[in-house]
């Protein structure tokens, strides 16, 4: 085991190692070269890998993704950085209609990764705080990944790059420099499509991902003092969902709360809750609850954003409600 590294550094290492290992891997993004990226995820890459593999692009999200699709079809492994993941909206058509459908329509794999900083709690207001997974959950052919730990961030970015399908990789910027872990030795690749049991417990399962995993763990710690044992399942991959994992957890604890940082309506939390409600119905002792943000854009002011975000207090309150059902 080495020094503990941040979530951001873990992503950087994952990208770096894949660039080292596979000459097909290259990057497209705004300010990723000389500047090393707005969050410095790719600092040093230009020097090491050169301008043909670390390409600073114009401000053209749609063309960045389009070019990645073309290059991916040709056998390369492009990784596109969105400076903030919110700007992915500008590439929506290329992603859901082009990248996601080629395999089905004409058998052509599109091995691309689109990554970038998502999430709130950094006072980024409406366009630098989004969790856009709910926009993409409906697009057949995509994979969506959202790691909560440094080890997963590194292991999953590697898996995403090696995956022969288009993968959206949502990094949570609140976690970038706030969590630190020792990483496992070796390759450390983490398979896409597998949830992680972040904490075992018998009384209620919190199914979540991204920064909310840490909220759930903190709530679990708080409730433990009262003898309440939360199970925390970190989905890690949002598409395809690890249905077996959350159904198993539901069958075990018989009570489930799905926690998301998205505005609740239309969130991935809905899909997860609907599946549990349908497929684990006979095991449920309480309704499958959901906790998310309100159905508004993310507000800027600290008082507003703090009120907006799901947090430990809100979660604990909902858990108590469910346990008394």
């Amino acid at each position, binding site marked *: 085991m080495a020094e503990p590294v941040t979530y951001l550094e873990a992503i950087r290492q994952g990208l770096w190692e894949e660039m080292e290992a596979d000459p097909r891997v290259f990057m497209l993004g705004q300010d990723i070269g000389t500047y090393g990226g707005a969050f410095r995820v790719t600092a040093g890459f230009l020097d090491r890998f050169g301008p043909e593999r670390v390409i600073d692009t114009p401000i053209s999200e749609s063309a960045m993704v*389009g070019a990645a699709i073309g290059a991916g079809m040709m056998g390369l492994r492009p990784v596109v950085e969105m400076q903030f993941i919110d700007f992915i909206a500008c590439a929506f058509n*290329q992603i859901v209609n082009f990248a996601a459908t080629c395999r089905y329509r004409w058998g052509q794999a599109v091995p691309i990764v689109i990554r970038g900083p998502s999430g709130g709690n950094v006072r980024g207001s409406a366009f630098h705080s989004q969790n856009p997974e709910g926009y993409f959950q409906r697009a057949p052919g995509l994979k969506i990944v959202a790691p909560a730990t440094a080890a997963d961030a590194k292991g999953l970015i590697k898996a995403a790059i090696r995956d022969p399908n288009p993968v959206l990789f949502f990094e949570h910027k609140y976690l970038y420099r706030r969590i630190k872990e020792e990483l496992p030795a070796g390759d450390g690749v983490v398979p896409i499509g597998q949830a992680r049991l972040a904490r075992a417990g018998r009384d209620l399962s919190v199914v979540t991902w991204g920064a909310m995993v840490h909220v759930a763990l903190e709530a679990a710690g708080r409730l433990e003092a009262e003898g309440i044992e939360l199970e925390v399942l970190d989905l890690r991959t949002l598409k395809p969902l690890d249905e077996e994992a959350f159904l198993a957890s539901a069958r075990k604890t018989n009570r489930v709360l799905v926690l998301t940082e998205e505005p609740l309506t239309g969130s991935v939390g809905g899909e997860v809750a609907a599946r549990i409600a349908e497929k684990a119905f006979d095991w449920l002792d309480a309704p499958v609850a959901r906790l998310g943000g309100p159905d508004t854009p993310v507000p800027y002011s600290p008082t507003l954003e703090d009120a907006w975000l799901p947090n430990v207090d809100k979660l604990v309150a909902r858990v108590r409600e469910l346990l008394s059902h």
Partner: protein
Amino acid sequence: MAKTSRGLGPLHPQVAPAAADRLARTSLAREQQLELYRYLQLTRMTEARLGNLYRQGKVVGGLYSSRGQEAVSVGSAYALAPQDVIGPIIRNLGAMLVRGVQPREVMMQYMARADSPTGGKDANTHFGDLSRGLVAPISMLGALIPVMAGVALAGRMLGKDLVAMTWIGDGGTSTGDFHEGLNLAAVLNVPFVLIAENNGYAYSTPTERQMRIKNIAVRAAGYGIPGEVVDGNDVLAVYEVTKRAVDRARAGGGPTLVEAKTFRMKGHAEHDDAGYVPPELFEQWRQRDPIDRFHRHLLAEGLASEELAAVTAEIDKVLDAEVDRALASPFPPPERALEGVYEEGPPAEAEAGGVGAP
């Protein structure tokens, strides 16, 4: 470069019929010209067969024709080398045929048959096959432009010495992806050629309501790349202009925007009678029919009219067989609907083994 108009008057067509119907000078040999002739006729005659199938109720969705525009697709694709990659759109059947697509493939696509290249999953010319240098479009116009720029980029990175080419209609030039894709291609200086096929209309919308300029090619200057206007109904001119663009791209000179002036001689699709097109426009352009003109050119060049008739006779025979083969294919089995969303194995490796390989 063409001059810009600031008025809003009638802007199309711009290309005066060449004097005495003389086609462009060419370096192409007799055999090559004959080959061009064959592709032009193959395109038109394949589409005629598709029209028959449509009227027989065999075509499942809409049917799109390139009638009157065949020289654009054929002439431009003919300028490519075997390693080059094309991304044709709905009116580029001729380009696909030049690149080796068989008529029955397209017939089966339209008829949604099990043995079509997409196995019945997608329609018309919407299929691709990288092993044949063919990328499939999506319906959203413009989207293929950045994708083909990416193909060109990859080609350079992989040392494949290839040129990527795609086409866009006058209407499609209004999309954001046209701008983003062409600008990115220009900035990255990739080997990419974009043929803007200005056929006077986008569905019912005349070009002057699509843009306030007479020549799409003037936009090239906005990307710092060469732009050329060519008579799209002169297959030799299209070939020559495209060839220069392809050679320049291959030599590291970056993208070119070629505007081919032509005319859509039918409605937007088979169901559309194009009642919104003034009949005299059809009449004018009929006189510039690219196949008739090339036929006259070949006769003037000394080819025998029997020689040319033999070409169409041979195509007719081929197409009889192609239609039969296409019709013999069944509809796909229902369970196929569920298959193939994700690639399971690793995707095909880049042949040259990575960026920077020679």
